């Protein structure tokens, strides 16, 4: 019985232009060859890459699992850098918003106050608002540094994992040490 002829497998990836070369080399470890490459029409810093690979290759199941793990790790690393700022910024902004509201409230009370009591209350609210603003700054900084530590540790492990994954994939495909 003659062998059935399979067409090559295809894979399309969209990445940031500055990381394109690294991604290209990484996918080469999984046996993918670049077929075409083009810039995104709308976002100039995005590159679309089309890869091809022989359909029947040795160790394909393992390669597919490794590739999923590689993609999960790379995507996490990309998101982690973004999340690092977002969580700190959101928490900081929320506290700062309370501070700003207190300052505005204090200013309005002072502007329309008729007695010394209201004047003092307004001043107190402004002071509290300023304290909240300072608190927001320090809290955001604290969250950022703790997240940086946490994500940094995870990222370090993931980078090691990515290296191991690429090394194992390269051993299967014979693409050389890509790690």
């Amino acid at each position, binding site marked *: *019985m003659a*062998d*059935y002829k*399979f*067409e090559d*497998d*295809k894979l399309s990836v969209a990445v940031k232009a500055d990381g394109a070369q690294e991604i290209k080399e990484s996918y080469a470890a999984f046996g993918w060859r670049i077929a075409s490459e083009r810039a995104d029409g709308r976002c100039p810093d995005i590159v679309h890459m089309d890869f091809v690979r022989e*359909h*029947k290759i040795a160790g*394909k*199941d393992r390669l*597919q*699992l490794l590739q*999923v*793990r590689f*993609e*999960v790790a790379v995507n996490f690393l990309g998101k982690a850098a973004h999340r690092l700022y977002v969580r700190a910024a959101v928490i900081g902004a929320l506290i700062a918003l309370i501070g700003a509201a207190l300052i505005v409230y204090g200013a309005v009370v002072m502007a329309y106050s008729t007695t010394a009591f209201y004047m003092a209350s307004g001043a107190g609210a402004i002071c509290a608002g300023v304290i909240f603003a300072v608190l927001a700054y320090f809290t955001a900084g604290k969250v950022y540094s703790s997240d940086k530590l946490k994500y940094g540790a995870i990222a370090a492990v993931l980078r090691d994992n990515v290296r191991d994954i690429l090394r194992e994939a390269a051993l299967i495909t014979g693409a050389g040490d890509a790690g």
Partner: protein
Amino acid sequence: MRGAPGGTYVRIKTERKGIGKLKTMGILLAALLQLGLITGLHFITAAAVSWYMIFSIVLDVLTCLYILASDKNGRSKAVWIMLVLILFPVGFLIYFLSDERIFFRSSRRRYQNILASSAGMLTGCSLHDMPESTARACAYLENATGYVPYKNTRAEYFPSGASAFDDMLEKCAFAKSFIFIEYFIIAEGALFSRLFSVLEERAAAGVDVRVIYDDMGSGGRLSRKVIKRARAAGIRMYAFNRLVPLYKIGMNYRDHRKITVVDGRVAYTGGINIADEYVNEKRLYGYWKDNAVRIEGDAVQGFTIMFLRQWEFVTKKPFDYSPYLYAGGGKFPLPSSAGAPSLKEGEAAPGGSAQTGAGMTTIVTEAARAAEGDAPDGAEEGTGDVPPPAKESCGCTGGVFLPYAAGLEYRDPVVRDVYAGVISQANERLWIMTPYFVPDETITNLLAGKARSGVDVRIVLPGIPDKGFVYLISLDNADRLTKSGVKVYTMSDAFVHTKSVLTEKCAVIGSANFDLRSFFQQYENALYSDDKKVMRGLERDFEDTFPECVQRTYIREHSGPIRRLLTAILQIFAPMM
């Protein structure tokens, strides 16, 4: 003259007075009528409510008695009774509209006629020359479903959808007589294009190509245009239990089977469906872990009949099965695996009469095994608990193969009962891989008991879920078993879709999950086998999967109150998931 005005005045006054009285009386009458109406309505409504309540309570009691007397499992009964009691007649309506005993009766009768008319066509091997545990399982399946055990069969295990479909495509490409395909999901994509280009080409060459797909499983993923194109190319395609926009009785009963039969010589089954995620050419939930098994030889007839019965059911046209079966159930001439050509391409598949194969004893050469792409023998194969298979020239290892179907056409919950039988006979190890783990008390208690008695019980579940709620229940159910000593694993970055059980005595590979839908509602199929090659293949798959998993510890006490509450609520409705 008396003053007319006075008289007129008096008269006029009198008239006015009369009208006023009349009005007053009218108003009073109206008020009285209204009062009477309200009072009447009140009494009527009160009486109606009372009668409604009496009617509802009587109806509920009768429905609950009906549910209690049904064949449903204990959990299902409890949930249905709760629903009926809460929803009153609405609960009664929901229950009876979905009761297969009433509204699936005609379909069931049709199925029974189909089963009866084709019952004599299956002639397998004797139960006497097989191990006791296998004989018991086969006896149950033969009695419950009519499917019979076979020998003279060789098998190949595939630990992934990609490897199984590549092999299947090659077999389909050289089909000469017929290709039967029955899958829960058939979805357009790269795999579909590859397979259907082969099917179109074979159909054009005169091969009888038939496809059954489930309308819910393939819903939205298989366009009418493609179905039309396939039909125009000569591929006969039918949807099982077509979905309609309105609620349809029996809509819940789906064809979850996964079968491919080529020329009556080769058959495939497993967890796979025809969709890109099953071959990892599309990412849905990380890596898609699946499996399949290919069989060649006598046992293929079990799958052929299984498909033909379903075909007769969906087309509603009786026909003669015998042209598709090998000599009406005779021995299949398995070729030697020692490099011999598998089957002559021009040879007609069905209808032969040779009686070879079962008694072949020539030992196959190592070179031939290597040429076939098999794993090396000896030391490597003997490393596991399953001894290396002793091979015959046909590639058979003397094992028993029993393809079986489960569904509403059978009185017994076959899937549950087979799993229960397999579990109860395990004495050393019991390894399970399933995407969903929502078993009934019978299975749960058996697993806990086995683990407590020292059997190595392991369950592999997905690390990434496809259905969040079912996953929560699955983990909860599995975690509870860890207290009894069951080892629960979740495969990292992967969705495990394999549905298989391995013990030291047998393997079950098929479409049936460890959940109540597979146990009691869906049309499933599987292969029961004690064949050493199948068992060794599955064992190796488990051994390769364990290192990719995280072993779970009992975390129920550590989970938050919201999760515990959500899980508790979901557990109530688990029988319906």
